[in-house]
């Protein structure tokens, strides 16, 4: 039984084995050999992990009593691992030109991804806390990776201080849940909570007294995984880790994608498995708590995005707004709402991956990352400009792209569930975001390229770019298989109950 449990951990284990192997090789091989073989080893273990998720089957399994493997986990894991493989490809040119410790970078990236996988699958508050910590320690080290650059170190310190404080906040919330129920397992917590207030002599504590505890858990999780407005540090970190060397867009991209996807999966599990639906607690959690976060993220992201001149910061704020829309899926907490959440999240990953690839390529040439550096990009690098246009259209939600399907479905479900105010705010935020998306597109396609040098596109980057463009278009035009898969993933939480 234990052996078969480890079988389901194969993706995580192959990442960890890959990371350790790379660290070991780093000791034995010299720098040049590491530069040549490090990324291949990382890519191999990433692909192995991705491949192994296809061999595990779809039946729901409890792994070691603290993780759940089911269609939902499989969906999220494949999304995460697919992103990891592309990040390794993207990181290759960056690592070769900007650091003398290539092995360390890949090892950290893989610990980071292993943490993300565990966060997405955990069904126990203890496991969640540990996994989030693995994720955030590896993330902090990635931000501070260029420790010769003082700004990178300062970014890492900021990550560490905010992150550790949030660990304490989240752990305090979990300790109260444990105290009330005597268990750390989501499903058992849910049973115990229903029993607590279901019994006839009602206990002294009213459910409403748990609202601060819920808020602690929510704030902790959301800040740790960087998916909502509190994370002031994230635009800062993606900027700071850029530093003067500029091309650390791979780090910014991994911070923008992996922890957020994992955090959403954890949030969905907490909402649907741990907080019993019959309880007032479930309703308070969805609205106002998560709802307010969604509104704040949407408005804050789009309004502050308007003022940015640095494209990395601009995309960081745009990402915050995007994740505000995705949070609506948690507020709805219906089967259709959850499928829409997965679809929107996938579209976000595709577009964000593509955008950061384009930014990475341009910032090799112009490390300041100003929007004005993109003037006349369609003449200087047609593939980049076309890709950037497509990804921005997808983020905005233009018909024919993956982003449209996600947004349309989310907004339809919001309307159906009767959250009209939320829908109006989301639409408003979408319109505001047109302001800064428009600026990038105008710079790329309408402004003249006078005085600007052409931008060469490395082979690895163009592979990632083309793959993401094809992905955005194919999922936007023929979404059926994809939607069915997302529905199957969402059904996991509703089939039995």
């Amino acid at each position, binding site marked *: 039984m234990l052996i078969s449990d480890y079988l389901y951990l194969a993706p995580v284990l192959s990442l960890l084995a890959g990371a350790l192997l790379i660290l070991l090789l780093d000791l034995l091989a010299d720098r040049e050999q590491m530069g040549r073989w490090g990324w291949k080893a990382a890519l191999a273990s990433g692909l192995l992990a991705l491949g192994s998720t296809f061999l595990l089957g779809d039946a729901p399994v409890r792994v070691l009593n603290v993780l759940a493997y089911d269609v939902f986990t499989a969906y999220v894991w494949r999304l995460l691992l697919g992103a990891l493989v592309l990040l390794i490809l993207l990181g290759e040119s960056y690592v070769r030109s900007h650091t003398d410790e290539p092995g360390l970078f890949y090892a950290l990236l893989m610990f980071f991804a292993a943490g993300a996988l565990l966060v997405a699958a955990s069904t126990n*508050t*203890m496991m969640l*806390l*540990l996994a989030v*910590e693995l994720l955030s*320690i590896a993330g*902090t*080290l990635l931000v*501070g990776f260029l*420790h*010769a650059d*003082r700004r990178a*170190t*300062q970014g*890492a*310190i900021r990550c*560490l*201080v905010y992150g*550790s*404080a949030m*660990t*304490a*906040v989240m*752990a*305090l919330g*979990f*300790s*109260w849940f*444990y*105290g009330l129920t*005597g*268990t*750390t397992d989501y499903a058992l917590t849910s049973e115990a909570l229903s029993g607590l207030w279901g019994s006839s002599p009602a206990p002294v504590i009213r459910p409403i007294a748990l609202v601060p505890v819920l808020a602690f858990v929510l704030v902790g999780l959301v800040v740790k995984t960087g998916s909502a407005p509190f994370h002031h540090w994230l635009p800062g970190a993606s900027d700071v880790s850029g530093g003067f060397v500029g091309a650390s867009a791979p780090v910014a991209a991994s911070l923008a994608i992996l922890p957020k996807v994992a955090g959403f999966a954890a949030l969905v599990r907490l909402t649907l498995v741990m907080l019993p639906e019959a309880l007032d607690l479930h309703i308070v959690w969805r609205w106002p708590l998560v709802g307010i976060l969604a509104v704040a993220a949407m408005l804050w992201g789009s309004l502050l995005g308007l003022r940015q001149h640095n494209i990395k910061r601009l995309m960081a704020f745009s990402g915050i707004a995007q994740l505000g829309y995705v949070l609506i899926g948690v507020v709805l907490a219906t089967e259709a709402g959850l499928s829409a959440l997965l679809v929107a999240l996938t579209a976000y990953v595709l577009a964000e991956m593509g955008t950061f690839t384009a930014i990475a390529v341009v910032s090799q040439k112009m490390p300041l990352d100003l929007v004005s550096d993109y003037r006349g990009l369609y003449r200087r690098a047609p593939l980049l400009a076309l890709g950037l246009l497509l990804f921005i259209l997808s983020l905005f939600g233009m018909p024919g792209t993956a982003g449209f399907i996600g947004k349309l479905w989310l907004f339809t479900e919001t309307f159906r569930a009767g959250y009209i105010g939320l829908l109006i705010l989301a639409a408003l935020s979408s319109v505001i975001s047109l302001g800064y998306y428009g600026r990038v597109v105008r710079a790329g396609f309408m402004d003249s390229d006078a005085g600007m040098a052409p931008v060469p596109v490395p082979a690895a980057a163009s592979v990632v770019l083309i793959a993401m463009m094809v992905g955005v278009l194919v999922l936007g035009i023929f979404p059926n298989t994809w939607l069915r898969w997302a529905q199957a993933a969402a059904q996991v939480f509703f089939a039995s109950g």
Partner: protein
Amino acid sequence: MPIASVPLSWYLILGAALFWVGLYGLLASRALIRTLMSIALMLNAVVLNLVAFARFVEPARTAGKTFALIVYAIAAAQAALGLALLIAVRRPHSTVAVEGTDVLNRAPRVVDEGKR
């Protein structure tokens, strides 16, 4: 008063007080070391909560105590990371030999120019 008769609420009040002191320290101080100590205080509040709950809610089982150990492990990892970053910040100023020699080489030259 014997330990056994201390009620659960006292532990929880102490835990909450520790937590808020830690949070205040985190928000009020600029020095990294003091920030790290404040965070350790917050985590200790969590551990106190967990151990008290473990003692009063389910004395026969071990989930709460395990959780407390895990929180300690996390606190240790964070402290190690914090100290490593602290060294990374300090290092460029104190020990990088190339910079040091550069400054030393330049200083006499300025003096020489002044003399001429």
